[in-house]
């Protein structure tokens, strides 16, 4: 008997008891759907994280100075020196001082992020100007009262005509010398709701506190690690103890996040795969019942010349068909549920072709492996005992 005939027989016997077939498949359906959902959402999340990192710049190195109380801390001169001494690996550097200050436009207080920056900040963060100019060396050196605003501030507070106007920061009037191009949907919570002033002014606003953050960019992906090493060795030389500072490389962070996410996904997929195992046992169970129920049929087939292998093949194909069908239903279910769930949490779910192919393969394997035992039991039945079975 050929494969296609066995297959048609299997489909027919499934069709005669649809409810039972569906219940038999349930374990496989749930298992495959769970695996697909986890993989699609995981991949989608991975893409999202990567694109966030890329937005920040993968060559970005963030130096955090925790400081050591009253003792001398490293200053921006040393940091600028570091940049000048290592043009082969460091492309740009800027202090980044988050300040606490009240920003007002007329009588209205703005709730915005105020950051003190150096002239290279625009390069470090890959920002773009739409009008005017950015903070320049002269501004920081002379502590001039000038500022650059994000596109959201420009739209919301100045109706798009902020250039040349003034903002009041802690009571001082700052002239707006530049407006940045929109970078993140122009929302109040994105990077567009921001005001930049010279870092020297910002430190003064903070009561001449230590600058606790510097941002560097490496010249390329390849020099990332070297730039990090150079910065760390300078800091080590200064502080003699790595408790006082921290250098974070975005590309390292990205790799680390990728690893963590990969591990989490593996664990989740493994848990979901247990359901596939349970599904396989379900198939085996039903197949054993089916073999018992059809003992007489097996006897009849044997009396007509069916060999053990014909019977075995019939039942294995039946088990395989059941689980592959379950797998396909699971894939459809998984892909649609992942899309819905992705929509809700704001991730673009991505069902990869390989995930779908592997799921199909695994369900086929589950069916064949767990179908083998019942099929073999059927194949080994003695024709006369099977015929007499009531």
């Amino acid at each position, binding site marked *: *008997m050929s494969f296609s*005939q066995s297959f048609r027989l299997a489909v*027919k*016997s499934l069709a*005669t008891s649809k409810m039972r077939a569906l219940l038999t498949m349930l374990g496989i359906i749930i298992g495959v759907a769970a695996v697909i959902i986890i993989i699609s959402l995981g991949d989608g999340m991975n893409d999202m994280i990567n694109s966030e990192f890329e937005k920040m710049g993968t060559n970005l190195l963030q130096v955090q100075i925790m400081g050591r109380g009253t003792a001398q801390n490293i200053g921006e001169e040393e940091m600028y020196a570091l940049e000048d001494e290592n043009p082969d690996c460091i492309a740009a550097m800027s202090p980044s001082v988050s300040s606490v200050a009240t920003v007002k436009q007329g009588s209205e207080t703005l709730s915005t992020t105020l950051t003190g920056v150096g002239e290279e900040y625009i390069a470090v963060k890959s920002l773009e100007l739409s009008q005017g100019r950015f903070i320049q060396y002269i501004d920081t050196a002379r502590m001039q009262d000038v500022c650059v605003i994000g596109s959201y501030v420009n739209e919301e507070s100045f109706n798009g005509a902020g250039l040349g106007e003034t903002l009041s920061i802690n009571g001082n009037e700052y002239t707006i010398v530049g407006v940045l191009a929109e970078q993140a949907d122009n929302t109040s919570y994105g990077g567009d709701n921001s005001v930049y002033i010279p870092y020297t002014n910002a430190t003064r606003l903070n009561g001449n506190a230590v600058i606790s953050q510097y941002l560097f960019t490496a010249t390329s992906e390849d020099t990332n690690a070297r730039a990090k090493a150079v910065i760390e060795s300078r800091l080590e030389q200064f502080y003699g103890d790595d408790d006082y500072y921290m250098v974070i490389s975005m590309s390292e962070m990205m790799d680390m996040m990728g690893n963590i996410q990969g591990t989490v996904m593996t664990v989740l997929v493994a848990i979901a795969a247990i359901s596939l195992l349970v599904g396989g046992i379900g198939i085996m169970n039903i197949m054993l019942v089916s073999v018992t129920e059809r003992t*007489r*049929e097996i*006897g*009849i*087939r*044997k*009396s*007509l*010349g*069916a*060999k*053990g*292998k*014909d019977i075995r093949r019939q039942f294995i194909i039946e088990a395989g068909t059941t689980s592959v069908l379950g797998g396909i239903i699971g894939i459809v279910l998984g892909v649609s549920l992942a899309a819905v769930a992705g929509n809700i949490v704001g991730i673009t779910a991505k069902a990869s072709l390989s995930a779908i192919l592997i799921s199909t393969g695994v369900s086929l394997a589950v069916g064949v492996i767990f179908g083998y035992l019942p099929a073999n039991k059927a194949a080994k039945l003695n*024709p*006369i005992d099977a*015929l007499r079975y009531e």
Partner: protein
Amino acid sequence: MIKFTDVYKIYQMGDTAVHALDGVSFEISDGEFVAIVGQSGSGKSTAMNIIGCLDVPTSGTYELAGVDVSTMDDDQQAVIRNKMLGFIFQQYNLIPTLNVLENVELPLLYGGMPASERRSRAMKALDMVGLSSKYRNRPNQLSGGQQQRVSIARALAGNPGVILADEPTGALDSRTGREVLSFLQQLNAAGHTIVLITHDNSIAVRAQRIIRLQDGRIIYDGDAHDPRAVVQPTESGAEEPAGFGEEDEA
């Protein structure tokens, strides 16, 4: 040719041994129509299961067409069943989930015949029993007599040399029973060897030859028209006289 030589079939039930066949020897030539008769429990079905390669003797040899089949492995026996033997059972034994045509096609399917030839052969067999119009029906949509005719069609579809019928009329009324019997006679006339099992003497006399079993032994083997073939030996007294079959009273 079917040849039994000193065949025993012994079932061990606890510490008693049931001799279902107790040293049976006979030969059936090609083209014969033989009825195996005897009381219930005399060993008729046991003999037929061995002839049909569904069961093996405890001892003794069984040769079919000159080959000792009792020592063959399962797959070889399956091939013998497929090519050389056709079965007709009392309970029809059709597969309920397949339609009439598919049931008749089964032996051809296991014989590896291509689909189109299989279909035409099966339809021809159904034609012979007058059921080609019902080929798409399920067995449970047919009467008992029709189901038995389907099983006859199935038995002859592969054109086997030997057709084995175990109480083929047992579940039918006498008129349908006679119809089934006349099919067997037609097949015999066409050259098939027929082995018919019955405990009904009125049916047995339609054969050429009768083998009568009692307690696993042959007590008569000869011409069906010999009065001794149907008359029970006096010492037994348990069996009904000739022509008195319960199915025949309807």
